């Protein structure tokens, strides 16, 4: 028996291209064309609204995936049980020393956050590579990883040249004071890996006599736009977390639908997709609001100003998210790898019976 060939898209070409990066690249191009690069009040408000509906729920979705089943908790007990205490200890220490420990706690989150964005871009590239039948060996992985993580090295190195601090809410976040040449070398490395990735893609196309679906490379290109040309556009920067979360929600939503259907033996139907999407989306909206709205305000009940409570809580929630995200999407786990190759049609319609 041969396994069915996975379909290329989670939903369809339009939706996948838009959510995986097309929409963000289009927004970047539009902002540049109309010369709206300032972080205006309208931009901040738009970013805040999108955070409520997509960005915050994406953190909740991660927690949901880990904590909603005892089997998951049993599989990752350190992440599920020990890590929250470690992160809580960091948050308590930060509240105890807002001038000394909190800046480092926030700094750790900010450094890790950029790396985390790249990790997700790489992961999504690998998903589409598998869907497209693009074999990712060591050489291909070098191209993907080098180019994608090169954007992390480049953008971070360029932002950490001085030793002056900057304010994240009311917390003074230190900069590392890197020599400027670090950014230059990061740029050369990133470009070299990008060229290598293009080369292996061309080699694959020649060997297979077909065009590599562009969506395989789209996450890497999107990552580049976010962190390199987009990094210096303040208005665009406000939306990058939203687009990162949008990518995530597409994958997590598909997984949720497929897993729930398989676990409970639910028949594919439009009603199921709508009902489960609404239930899952609603739960994550509430979860996100608790994590990013209720918890910081709870911190103020202990006498901490919101300008201190908010960055510490945000850092704690995100650091926890990075840990959880790092373990629940391992493609090597067949329980994860298999549902990651679904298409929305699998949940909408029963498969046609095979003819003997």
């Amino acid at each position: 028996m041969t396994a069915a060939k996975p379909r290329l898209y989670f939903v369809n070409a339009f939706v996948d291209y838009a959510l995986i990066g097309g929409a963000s690249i289009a927004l970047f191009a539009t902002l540049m064309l109309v010369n709206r690069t300032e972080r205006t009040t309208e931009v901040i408000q738009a970013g805040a609204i999108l955070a409520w509906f997509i960005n915050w729920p994406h953190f909740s979705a991660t927690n949901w995936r880990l904590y909603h089943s005892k089997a998951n908790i049993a599989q990752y007990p350190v992440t599920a049980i020990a890590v929250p205490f470690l992160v809580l200890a960091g948050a308590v220490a930060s509240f105890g020393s807002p001038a000394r420990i909190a800046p480092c706690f926030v700094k750790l989150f900010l450094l890790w956050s950029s790396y985390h964005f790249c990790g997700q871009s790489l992961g999504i590239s690998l998903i589409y590579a598998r869907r497209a039948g693009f074999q990712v060996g060591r050489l291909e992985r070098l191209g993907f990883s080098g180019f994608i993580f090169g954007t992390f090295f480049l953008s971070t190195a360029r932002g950490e040249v001085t030793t002056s601090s900057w304010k994240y809410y009311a917390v003074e976040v230190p900069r590392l004071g890197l020599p400027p040449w670090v950014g230059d070398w990061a740029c050369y490395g990133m470009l070299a890996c990008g060229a290598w990735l293009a080369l292996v893609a061309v080699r694959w196309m020649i060997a297979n006599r077909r065009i590599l679906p562009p969506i395989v490379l789209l996450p890497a290109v999107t990552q580049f736009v976010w962190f390199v040309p987009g990094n210096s556009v303040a208005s665009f920067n406000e939306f990058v977390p939203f687009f990162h979360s949008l990518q995530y929600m597409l994958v997590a939503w598909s997984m949720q639908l497929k897993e729930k259907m398989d676990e409970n033996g639910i028949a594919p139907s439009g009603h199921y997709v709508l009902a489960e999407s609404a239930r899952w989306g609603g739960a994550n909206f509430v979860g996100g609001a608790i994590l990013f709205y209720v918890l910081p305000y709870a911190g103020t009940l202990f006498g901490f100003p919101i300008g201190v409570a908010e960055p510490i809580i945000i850092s704690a929630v995100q650091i926890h998210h990075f840990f959880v995200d790092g373990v629940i999407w391992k493609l090597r786990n067949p329980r994860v790898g298999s549902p990651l190759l679904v298409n929305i049609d699998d949940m909408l319609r029963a498969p046609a019976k095979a003819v003997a």
Partner: protein
Amino acid sequence: MSALALALLLQSDAPRLADERILLRTSTGDLVLALYPEVAPKHVAQILRLVRLGVYDGMHFHRVEPGFVAQLSGHHDRTAPLTPVQSAAIAKIPGEFSAIRHRRGILSMARFDDPDSAETSFSILLGPAPHLDGKYTVFGHVESGLDVLAAIERVDREVTRPRSRISVVRATVFVGRTLLFAGVAFVAVGVVASFIVPRLLHRRARTACLLLVLVGYFLMLLVFVKEREKVPAWVPIAVFVGAAALFRFLATFESPAPRITQPPP
């Protein structure tokens, strides 16, 4: 490490050093001062408090006697007047005399005739002064910057007063090496153990090692942030590359996942 610090370490009764160090940024160069909290707890507490409040900023070495002392002026002789908060923090400190001998590099608190009259002024010994032993409070020593001390000693003077002002541009407190050593130790033990442990123990033990690395890195980050303006250029690069390596390392958290058999079709 200075010769004095080495000599003190070799002594069996070497005083315990505080975690904090004082960086005295002078117009001649930087001096790092180590403190003895068990020998002179009240002096150390007051000096740390005053340094943090910026009381020592703008003071100067008003007296230099080669082979004897370089004395830092009191708070009355600052370039800028004290703020009310700074003034309120200054109190007379009772003498905390000990058996530690006055010799080059030792920090000795200045006072008037009254043994309990010390406030802010102190001296750095430029040579042995046995006549001061047991009569003036010793509260620390110069840990690094003895070359700067030598430069101060050579300054052109009018009797004991330097002709050109040797100012304290800025005095700051930073955490010393204990935290750094702890961080390095955590990272080293965590990294080494994470490679060895999987061969011996369960994969979760390796994950615990990764947490150790994270905690160690965070401790080092704390020290680095405090001192980042006076470290060599390779240190921030190491911190940055270390962060990327740490995140890469943490990507193996609770991995590899146990093999889950596919359910039958």
